[in-house]
Structure formats: C-alpha cells, structure tokens
C-alpha cells in the first residue's frame, strides 16, 4: 500500500500532538496544576494515529480512560481538551467530564469513558445506528487488554458479528491492566485470537509501527464500510508512564515493572521509528518539514495552555445544567 505524503505528514503531526500534549499533562499533574487523576498514553501514539488516519470525519470513535491520544488523532482541539482537564467552562464538556470523559460530537468522538469496557457496546450501537439510518459511517472502538476480559467485550463482539455491524475493535495491548501484568490474568497470549470465537477476522499488529497500524485499519474500515462486518485488531504497544500519573507516590519505584523493561520499550519509540522511516525510508520527507511540524505543535500546545488558564471556572449555578435535554 502506497501512503501519500500528505497522509504521512498528517500522521506525523498527530503523533507529535499526542506526545507533546501528554507530556505536558503529565508535568501539570505532577505539579498539581490540574485536578483529579490522569492517564497518559505516551508510547502508544502509533495505534491511535494509524487507526484514526484510516477514518473519515463522519466516522465515529469510542475511547477509554487513557483517551487523550485517540481524541487528538481524531482531530480533537488541544485548547478545549486542555481547558476541560483544567475543569474550566471553556473545556469540551464545560468542566463536567474532565480528563477521562472528553467528547466532541462534531468530530464523531462519542467519548472517552471512565469504565473499562464500557465503550465496546457503545461503539457497537453507534455502528448499528449507521445501519438504521442507511449511512456507511464506520465506528472504531479503542480499548485495552484489560477490557478484553470484561463481559462487554464478548457481548459486543458477538452482537457486532451477528448483525455484521460496521465497527472496528482496536485493542491496544500495552501489557498491563492498571498494575497487573496482562499475562497473569488473561487466558490467551494474544487478544486477537479471541476474534475466532466470534467468527470475525482478528489480527496481531505491531502497535508501534504507525504505517502497519494504518494499513490494517484501512483494510478493516473498508470491510466494515462494505457491510462485511467487524474486525478485531490487536495493537501490541506499551505505556511509558504508569497507569496513572503520580502512582510512584503510593506504589514506589519498580513496584510492578522494571525500569529496564520501560527503557527497552522507549528504544522502540513509535515516533522516532516513523521519523526515521519518513526521512531515510520510503517517506521521501525532509527533516526540515518534520521539524516544522514540531515547531507548530509546540506553538499549538502553548496556545492551548494559555487558553485553558485564561478560561473561567464554571459558576456553582451551572451544577444543575445538562442533566436532562
């Protein structure tokens, strides 16, 4: 599959936006500048980016508690995301959702979700809505290895398979459910094999190779759009940071994984890998062009923080707004 230059640059920008945003969020959380707890996806930029690059604007996604990356990859605005994480009125959800619950319906982002596995049936229903309305919009559903042990995973794959719904299930297997190694609580080595139980295609994908993710996602999206039903993609990846920012304060260092393991995965950085491919491999892109994207991203992030800081906190009187339509 030949990936055009515009698409490559778009994916590079997406990965940089995620990395910059998430790194900043980690720093802000450590500095106690933002309330609540945050889960960042540094190291997992390729799976979010590769999948969303295969979608069009009217396609929809569902995401997880570790959702910033997915939303950014689907086109989410950094300023409104940042303001939401600050709990400000100018945020995507007027400060009612926070880090784990950002939504942008205009971009088909049905939302991050604080409940592990909750997005699977929601994505399945979103795909059902395409069938009911006679549209060919596809829904991509992000979830982790942990969610694949939830009943909703199995119920959703079955339902989507029975009804041949236009949904792509994307498991980002980062090796840990919270602080528990995936292999100690999961009956299979590869989540992708679970597709077999529902008679749908399942593929193991190198989740740190954005081009490979993009290729598999493009094929799965095409199947879905053609009415051939769901696909399960398992993107093998790794989260560089902990489950939740600041966890060392209560867990200590190396409580459940070795630093050497983290370092090993950092050497497989999806951004550096893609960058090298763009310049030296098949990308035919100059270093200057990529640098320009980084510079623009830094500026976008600075503006986002300024927007969030200057946005007002919600008034107490807004507490009863939006319970009902």
């Amino acid at each position, binding site marked *: 599959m030949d990936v055009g230059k515009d698409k490559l640059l778009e994916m590079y920008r997406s990965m940089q936006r995620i990395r910059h945003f998430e790194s900043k969020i980690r720093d802000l959380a450590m500095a106690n500048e933002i309330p609540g707890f945050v889960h960042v996806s540094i190291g997992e930029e390729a799976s979010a980016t590769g999948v969303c690059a295969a979608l069009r604007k009217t396609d929809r996604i569902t995401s997880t508690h570790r959702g910033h990356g997915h939303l950014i990859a689907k086109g989410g605005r950094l300023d409104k995301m940042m303001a939401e994480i600050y709990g400000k009125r100018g945020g995507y959800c007027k400060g009612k959702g926070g880090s784990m619950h950002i939504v942008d319906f205009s971009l088909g982002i049905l939302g991050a979700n604080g409940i592990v596995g909750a997005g699977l049936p929601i994505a399945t229903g979103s795909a059902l809505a*395409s069938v*009911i309305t006679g549209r060919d919009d596809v829904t991509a559903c992000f979830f982790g290895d942990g969610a694949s042990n939830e*009943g909703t995973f199995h119920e959703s794959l079955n339902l989507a398979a029975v009804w041949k719904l236009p949904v792509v299930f994307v498991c980002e297997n980062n090796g840990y459910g919270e602080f528990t190694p995936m292999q100690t609580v999961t009956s299979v080595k590869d989540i992708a094999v679970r597709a077999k139980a529902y008679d749908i295609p399942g593929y193991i994908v190198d989740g740190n190779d954005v081009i490979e993710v993009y290729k598999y996602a493009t094929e799965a999206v095409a199947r879905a759009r053609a009415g051939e039903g769901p696909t399960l993609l398992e993107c093998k990846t790794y989260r560089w940071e902990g489950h939740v920012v600041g966890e060392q304060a209560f867990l200590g260092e190396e409580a459940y994984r070795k630093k050497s393991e983290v370092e090993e995965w950092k050497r497989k950085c999806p951004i550096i890998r893609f960058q090298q491919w763009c310049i030296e491999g098949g990308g035919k892109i100059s270093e200057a062009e990529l640098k320009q994207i980084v510079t623009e991203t830094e500026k976008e992030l600075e503006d986002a923080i300024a927007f969030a800081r200057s946005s007002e906190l919600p008034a107490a009187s807004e507490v009863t707004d*939006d319970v*009902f339509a």
Partner: protein
Amino acid sequence: MPQLNFIQAINSALAEEMERDPLTFLMGEDVILGAFGATKGLIDKFGATRVRNTPISEAGFVGAAVGAAMAGTRPICEVEFASFFYCAFDQVCNQAAKLRYMSGGQARLPITFRAVFGAMGGAAAQHSETVYAQFLSVPGLKLVVPSGPADMKGLLKSAIRDDNPVIVFEHGALGRLKEEVPAGDHLVPLGKAAIKRAGDNVTLVAIGAMVPKAMKVADKLAKENISVEVIDPRTLIPLDEETILNSVAKTNRIAVADEGHLRGGAASDIAAIVAEKAFDSLDAPVKRVASLDVPIPFSPPLERAAVADEARIEAAIRELVGH
C-alpha cells in the same frame, strides 16, 4: 374509544411511534415474537432492520442502545424482566444516565427502555422485583410506572418522543386489565400526576399496580364515609410534587402505597418529600405501605405475605383517620 388491555396499549403505542419516526427502532429479547405479546406483529409492519431480536446479552445490547442513541437514532430497548437490568447496570447508570451531563450537554440519549416488573404469581425473586427504586438516585434517568392501559399508551408515546433515557416499568400483573383508551394521538406528559379519585379525608398516593388496589380500598371506605383522594404520580422522575402537596394541604393525612420494598423505596422517597415540605399540614405521621424487606418469595402464600396488598392499604388509611 377502543377498549384495550395493557399489552394492546403498548403494541399500539409502539406501532404509532415507529410509524411516525423512522429513526425509532425496536431491540430486545424476543421482540420479534413478542414474549408477552406487546411487540407481536411489529416485524411485519417495520421489517427486520427496525425490529431486532438481541442475544440474551443485556450489557451488550443495552450498551448498544446507548451508542445507537448517541449516534442519532431513537432506540426502544426491551429488557424482558426489569431484574435483568442488574446485568446492564453500568450501561444504564454510568452511561445512559450520565453521558449527557458529563459531555456538557453534547450527548443526546433518546432511549426508551421497557421492562416488565412486579409480583405476578410464582415468578420468585429474580423475576418479581420492583426495581425502580434502584434508579431513583441515579440522576439523568426518567422513570415511568403506568397503572392502566390509557396511561400506558400515552406515557409510552411521550417516553419515545423524549430526548432523555426513560425507563417504562410495566407491571406484569396488569396485562389483562382493559379500559377505554382515547383514539388518535393520545399523549400523557411525563411529570403530571393523575388524581384518580377526589377525596377529603386522606391522600393515598399509589404507584403502578397499587393504583387499582387503592381504588378498591377507596370504594370500600367511601361506604363508611371515609373519603380518600387517590393520586397516581405516573412518573417517579420527574415527580409531580405539586399535586401531592396540594392534596395533603387539603386532607392533612397521607399514605403512600408502593409494591417496592420499604427501605430506600419509592414510598419512602415520597414520604420524605411530604414530611419535609408539608409538615405543618400533617395531622398524622406519613404512612408507607410497601412490600416487606425480603426477596419476593415463590410459594403463593409467601408471596402474598411479602407483597403490599389491599388489606395493608386499608389498615393504613384506618390508622390515619383514627388520628
């Protein structure tokens, strides 16, 4: 006006609303066949795309209804027995109820859930529970409990047109009850109580299947010149507090009859509202008539012992007028 039973009223409401709005569709366990008859024949009118049997997979299909609603359709989702909601609690309480609020008003969740509930004779605890109290303290849901065919039709039609998640609880013992149902586009607004019978001595708020029982008790006591005002709130959220409080201001006595359990139930909730807001009007303590705090038993004499009935309603009213 046609005479319809509860089940026919549901069927007629579904057919009319599905005819009216192509974005509506029906999904749930055995809706093609219509396990209790309520959805019978709809497949012939609306086809297989809009009438869908789901697997017995409540978390999956209730969650799918949430996603389908968020993506622009108006699902009517049947959960065969209301106790099965326990299998889909996250999808109802964490997702359907909260996503509008959590998204700052972006999400619209026009979902109608339908479920049969209540003691209907030998179904035992996992098929007989009155479960709406479990949803009373989950903001974001509307709760509808019709007591007869005419309200059933009008409330269900309003629920389907509502842009929020609404659960319509259909008491299983009311299925054969027949009454006249207004022809045409009969709508009953959510949040408006019905004064089923006017009276001066005691207010009797009755919910769902307690309404026909309350009416019988009121008829009986009228012969002794005890005048009972029977109010059917029809929807628990929103609750028409005004109608209840106005009645108490007149009668100065109130009993609340509900088939749910006493602790944390709908009767307790309404009693607390009255005690707080109408204390100065009361000449007697608020009485609650509810089912015992035991799982609803299987064997008929045990079931009768557990579930609130006419005798207990009558005893409560007599106690109130004795004050």
